[in-house]
């Protein structure tokens, strides 16, 4: 039987080129070579798979030339037409983790080749990419290589063969928000009793279903000089120009709208409406200022109460309670607002 083809990605450190001083090492394909951690992977693959090429890239190089590096590496991977792509493991190395996540996600998405990586749960790359590619949970340093490879190799083979991937606890990947069934060793009631005994004793226990968590961000300092401040409007009430030009969907908040209100003094029934499916739209459609108070802010701008109203506003649809999906693009437009010199934001929700 022909062996499954694996392409492996590692950084300059694991390729033994050098440490931080060599982090600007550009992406390089070593066809037919097995380098560094690849040896351990090969051992675990046995007769089933082989590494047909190793791509080496410096961490700084990758992160500073992310578009070019990604494009170059995708070409390299494509040229070897592998069955699966492995990046890392990156352990707790932040930039390496981000590189592994970025390239693994790109290979999977752009080339349609399954990809997997591994890193420590607190590596920033883990949070960024755990929902995009399987990330094997590793220890926080390369001392955990043996353990990492022991999980990474079998998962790699399963992905290459297109087999069903079990639950995170079975396969050893960082939970990715997808619930997968599996059989525990004990029945549920026995697990509940054990969990209760631990909880009563104040010992650590692991819930089988983590409740959605809400973290906090500390408040930013107040606006000192409102008369010269640039204020921006954001709404989760789905206010869009009449006709919904960006086709913002009424329920699932999969993207957001960015709209220019330069010269707009008042939102009217003829010009603006709501795309939100989460409330009775009659009132907002009649007068969108009821959700996005452009008229009042224009008055205040004229009166000098505020410096100016930012010429762009951002709109999403999102139920008050369903916030998770909004996180990603909110971060995106928040950065734009900051870059545009906005001083403060009024966010309205329905």
């Amino acid at each position, binding site marked *: 039987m022909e062996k499954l083809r694996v392409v492996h990605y590692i950084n300059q450190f694991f390729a033994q080129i050098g440490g931080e001083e060599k982090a600007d090492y550009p992406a390089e394909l070593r066809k037919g070579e097995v380098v560094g951690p690849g040896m351990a992977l090969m051992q675990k693959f046995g007769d089933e798979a082989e590494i047909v090429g190793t791509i080496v890239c410096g961490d700084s190089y990758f992160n500073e030339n992310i578009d070019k590096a990604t494009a170059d590496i995708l070409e390299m991977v494509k040229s070897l037409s592998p069955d699966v792509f492995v990046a890392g493991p990156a352990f707790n190395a932040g930039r390496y983790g981000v590189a592994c996540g970025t390239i693994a996600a790109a290979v999977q998405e752009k080339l349609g080749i399954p990809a997997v990586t591994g890193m420590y749960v607190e590596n920033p790359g883990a949070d960024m990419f755990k929902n995009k590619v399987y990330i094997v949970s590793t220890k926080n340093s390369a001392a955990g290589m043996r353990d990492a490879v022991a999980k990474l190799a079998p998962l790699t083979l399963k992905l290459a063969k297109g087999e069903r991937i079990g639950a995170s606890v079975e396969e050893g990947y960082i939970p990715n928000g*997808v619930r997968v069934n599996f059989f525990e060793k004990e*029945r549920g009631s*026995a697990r509940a009793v054990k969990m*209760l005994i631990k909880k009563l004793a104040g010992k650590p226990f692991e819930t089988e279903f983590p409740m959605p*968590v809400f973290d906090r961000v500390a408040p930013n300092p107040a606006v000192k000089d409102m008369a010269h401040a640039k204020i921006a409007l954001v709404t989760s009430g789905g206010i869009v120009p009449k006709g919904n030009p960006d086709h913002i969907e009424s329920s699932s908040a999969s993207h957001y709208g960015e709209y220019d209100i330069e010269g707009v003094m008042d939102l009217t029934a003829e010009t603006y409406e709501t795309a939100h499916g989460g409330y009775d739209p009659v009132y907002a459609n009649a007068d969108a200022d009821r959700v996005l108070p452009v008229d009042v802010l224009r008055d205040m701008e004229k009166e000098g109460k505020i410096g100016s109203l930012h010429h762009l506003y951002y709109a999403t649809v999102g139920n008050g309670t369903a916030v998770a999906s909004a996180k990603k693009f909110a971060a995106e437009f928040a950065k734009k607002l900051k870059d545009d010199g906005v001083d403060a934001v009024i966010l309205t929700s329905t």
Partner: protein
Amino acid sequence: MKLEIGNIFIKDIQFASEARIEDGVVYVDKAALEKIVLEDENIKSVTFDIAKPGESVRITPVKDVIEPRVKVEGRGGIFPGVIAKVDTVGSGKTHVLKGMAVVTAGRIVGFQEGVIDMTGPGAQYTPFSQTLNLVMVCEPVDGLKQHDYEKAVRLAGFRVAVALGELGRNVTPDETKVYETCGIKEGIEKYPDLPRVAYVQMLQSQGLLHDTYVYGVDAKQTLSTILCPTETMDGAIVSGNCVSACDKNPTYVHENNPVVEDLFAQHGKTLNFVCQIITNENVYLADKQRSSDWTAKMCRMLDLDGVIVSQEGFGNPDTDLIMNCKKIEAEGVKTVIITDEYAGRDGKSQSLADADAAADAVVTGGNANEVIILPKLDKVIGTLDYINKIAGASEETLQPDGSLKVELQVITGATNETGFLRLSAR
């Protein structure tokens, strides 16, 4: 209260002219059982069949599963207030026909669910692929209303189970287990250093096909109350619930409640199993409020340290579950909750219809939306007419090769929320 359970291990079921138990074989007199079933004039006819583990048999649509038991010493009889007269059960001695079950099947409403496969991939998801099943399919008299039909089948199942249990009255059990709880003061004195733990069981109680009965009382008309856990072993709680096959509790689960068993296993060792608290899952919101208030209040009054809360059913019981959990935790009593998930076919949706940070210790019975292929089996007991018309099934349910593509929710007991099975999810 102290109850001795004598298990008679059943190795086989056979039809015979004389009903008896011999060397672990139950000989069933079909004609005699038929007479018992037809005592109810609402039932026109009944057919009996036997399904054994490993056989290529599919039973559907399943209504209830019942374990035959008989009270040989002590007060009351099995299924008090339903079959036996009202009297407090849970003490003395009870014999159990271990390894067999009475399964009632038949169409009560057109969208009914419940599949038991005795072999194949489906078998591992239902506990009742492991029992020797006497299946009874009841036909109603013409024009019978669903209410009356449901009730007739429910009671017929209990009568048959009691008749079979009676065969074990004078059989020497193969195994005896003793379950004993103490009074409040006695327990504190006996186990001064052990945490005081109770089991909070939520009972489905919303209306037709969604009901549970406690000593014959419709649970939706009850306030949260206390049981001695051994009472359930004598059939104090019975099921009238035919919807949501995967996470409803058939009567068998009440008789063999795994939380009760596993808490008893730790009783006197790592914890003091004080009692069982039962509470309902009503449709009316003020009832939910009241029932959860009472449950939390009792947890406090009983000076409990911890409880396990189990749920039954889908959707609005999530609200009861979270209310119970929040309020009990607020009383300073630690909770572990057992639930199941509806995370969508792809596992990506929010699993529960309610959530709270207080629910930090959760055991899950798995994602009921997960899809499974059930291969064609040789024999069907009941009817497949409705199989592609039941929850979790869809138009493409019946595959060209005769197999069924369904969600786990159609399988009886698959994601049971008392923790009856090993299935879980992450």
